[in-house]
């Protein structure tokens, strides 16, 4: 029985690994930092300024800094993908192929995001920083690399509350 389970696990894991971009918990990929990384022409960063002070990673614990950045990345992706339209389309396609097209119609309303990210982010940052946030600006900045240093190319405002 154990051998069977183990074999099944390996088969499923290999299947998931071959699927590359898809996982099915607990079958996940451990392929972090394995994709060949071409030398980036530019590096895009989110610059968060709270009450006139730019937040810097050096002054924050690693996970706290993660919690400043990760929501921005996700929101950017959500915006850029029209609320993950491609994923929803794939889900619809998959269900239809499985003969469960009606299920998609039933689930459709569950799939859409309706929340107000900028307001939430401001409130969340206030909790994370343990102080009220009166003014929040988030900009996107592009840098180029020169001898291990990053040199600013341009900036764009993104969120301003």
């Amino acid at each position: 029985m154990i051998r069977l389970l183990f074999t099944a696990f390996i088969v499923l894991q290999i299947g998931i690994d071959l699927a590359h971009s898809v996982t099915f918990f607990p079958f996940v990929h451990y392929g972090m930092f394995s994709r060949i990384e071409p030398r980036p022409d530019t590096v895009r960063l989110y610059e968060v300024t709270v009450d006139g002070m730019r937040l810097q990673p050096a002054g924050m614990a690693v996970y706290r800094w993660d919690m400043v950045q990760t929501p921005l990345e996700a929101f950017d992706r959500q915006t850029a993908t029209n609320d993950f339209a491609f994923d929803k389309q794939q889900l619809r396609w998959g269900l239809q192929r499985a003969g469960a097209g009606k299920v998609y119609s039933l689930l459709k309303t569950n799939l859409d995001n309706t929340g107000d990210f900028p307001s939430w982010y401001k409130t969340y940052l206030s909790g994370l920083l343990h102080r009220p946030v009166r003014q929040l600006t988030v900009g996107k900045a592009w840098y180029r690399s020169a001898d291990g240093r990053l040199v600013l190319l341009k900036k764009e405002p993104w969120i301003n509350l």
Partner: protein
Amino acid sequence: MQYSRDKNLLLTVYFLFYFFVFFFFALDHRLLSQVRPVLFWYNRDLAELTLIGLGLPRWMIAHPAAFAAMDGLVFTIPASLIVFAARKKRFSRPLGWFFTLFFALYILLADIFWQVHLEPFVVYWLLSFCFLTNDERTFYRILRLCRYYFLYLFVSAAVWKIARGAVFHGQEMSHILLVHHGYLLSGDCDTWTCGMYRWLIAHPAYAQSLYIASVVLEASFLAGFFTRRFDRLLILLSIVFVVADLVVMRIPYWTLLVGAAALWVDSGSRERAIVVYETTHHENLPALLDLAASRFPRVVVFLQELSWQNLCGEGSPSDRWPGTEFVRQAPGSPNRPFIHRLFAHIRRHRCSHLHLSTLDNNLLVFAWRIAMAGNLHVSLTIHEVNAWFAHTDRSIRGISESLARLFFQWRIGHYTFFLPSMAARFQQRLPGASTSFIPSRFYTRGPSGEAASPDIPQVAARPSGEAASPDIPQVAARPSGEAALPDIAQAALRTQQFDAASPFTIVIPGSIDPNRRDYEIIAAFFESWQPARPVRLVLLGDGNSGYAKTVISRLQNVESTIFRLVYYAGYVPEAIYEREIRAAHLFWSPLRVEKKGSRDEPEVYGQTTASGLTADLLLNDIPALVPAGFVLSPPFDKALLSYSSPADVASILDRLLADGQKLSRLRQEIDSAFSFFVKENFTGAFEELMGSASRSIAS
């Protein structure tokens, strides 16, 4: 017991990690109720997609109290599971399932709402299955699967990097660092770590070396699929990986280390076999070997050559324990290769038990080896209770032994002692330990009526003045010294006359060591006492030391037609030792009841340490003269005749010499009391020592 220990260990390690993870979630404002998200994200995980499709994330956003409920449950469910396990000594299957399913749900939601990243938490989820069972075999099977998964996790990471070609791309690490540390590099970059990142980015070859090293490290976990031999090393490598990940990548991946518990707990099966290690205290082995031979299909003894030669009074150890394998350390050969051989044998044959009959040197080496030996059941004979708890920082050796003892106190749960009082004292100091009293040997003497003739075999001892026989060079009789060598014929005649008078034989067993025994009282006593009939005094220990020579010289000076001294220069072979003891009428053990132990710790004979007398007593049914204050628990106490002064000794000896019936009655009483010391009465204690008789956490 091993199962119970492993289960408790896993429970402790797992939930320490678990609560630390959620404690840091709270600290970094990452609990769901702290985040109170308004958006959910698609991470292309089918399980997450299912939850999104079912509408759970949307519903939770609309009902924020649900986040607080989830956070409450993430602490209360495992707390209930732990409390149940502690109270009932078993796991609740419904609670276990609830925890396993809930944990998966929480982690999936955390990933949907704030990108927790599922990878390190799969190990937590898989390990949680261990809390669903109270069956030993299932527990270890699950643990084995978790072990494979932990290995797979690293190997998979290496395979991805190799298969995608990143490891062969010379600029890979440099580019990763540039993108990954963009925020630091765009700022002041005035920390040493940021300076290091910048340097690595500017020197891609060095950066790529780190990348390749990480791939090699990850790939080395492949070895774990073929052997458990390197499991402890792999734990170390996983820690190195986590530290390097934190320093180079600023990724605190310590959460992953919970999986090392699956490597630490040796879930592989072992052959039921006991390996016994002994150095020089061979006299303490016989009972243990008798018991081991009757309870284990395979017994292997690692011991010194000298111990092997002296293990039995009669015949060879291989004849007495025919099924037992003896691995002998050649005289003069170093200890460490022998210890290495011992553990190599245990590893190769997957032996289930190791008993350290004596552990007085190389403590740190043993600690390291045992730490690397997996779920081997280790038991230990304690010779000195106080020394075992001694800690010193006065020397390198003292520090290393203190550290090793701390480890042993944690690692070894089963101890044996030669006296019940030692076991009791030890348990007071280490209440969780399992302590067993097993004598050094079983009582083999018949009733006193069957006593052997007290005549000393001629090869064993010689009266003074006779030359040593060349066929027994290690049993040197007293050298003639400066005195003129008497005529051999006359000496033989004197011996015959002395023996014909049936001398009363008093044996003083043990090394002639002033720290352990007070020989001053012996010498002073015989200088003043006039026995009523011939007395032979046997010093049954090495008489070669300077102190011994002084004692012997004093006693030689009082030799007469009714008092003879027998002593040995050099190591006394066991055959002769036992024959002397069996031929004796009385022991005299002038112990210094309070003495300094082997590590200068104060020890009390009979309470915190056992003298060799407890082993010697079991070779005969004769009483022993001991100083007042030396107390032995029943039934040993039947054999003790206490004295407070030389006058007491004289009184006891005069009565014994004058009244042969008194000695016979005493011997009958001792024989009757010592009939307790048979193997059958100690199988329970031995099973306890081997961890077979104890209760288990599981039902």
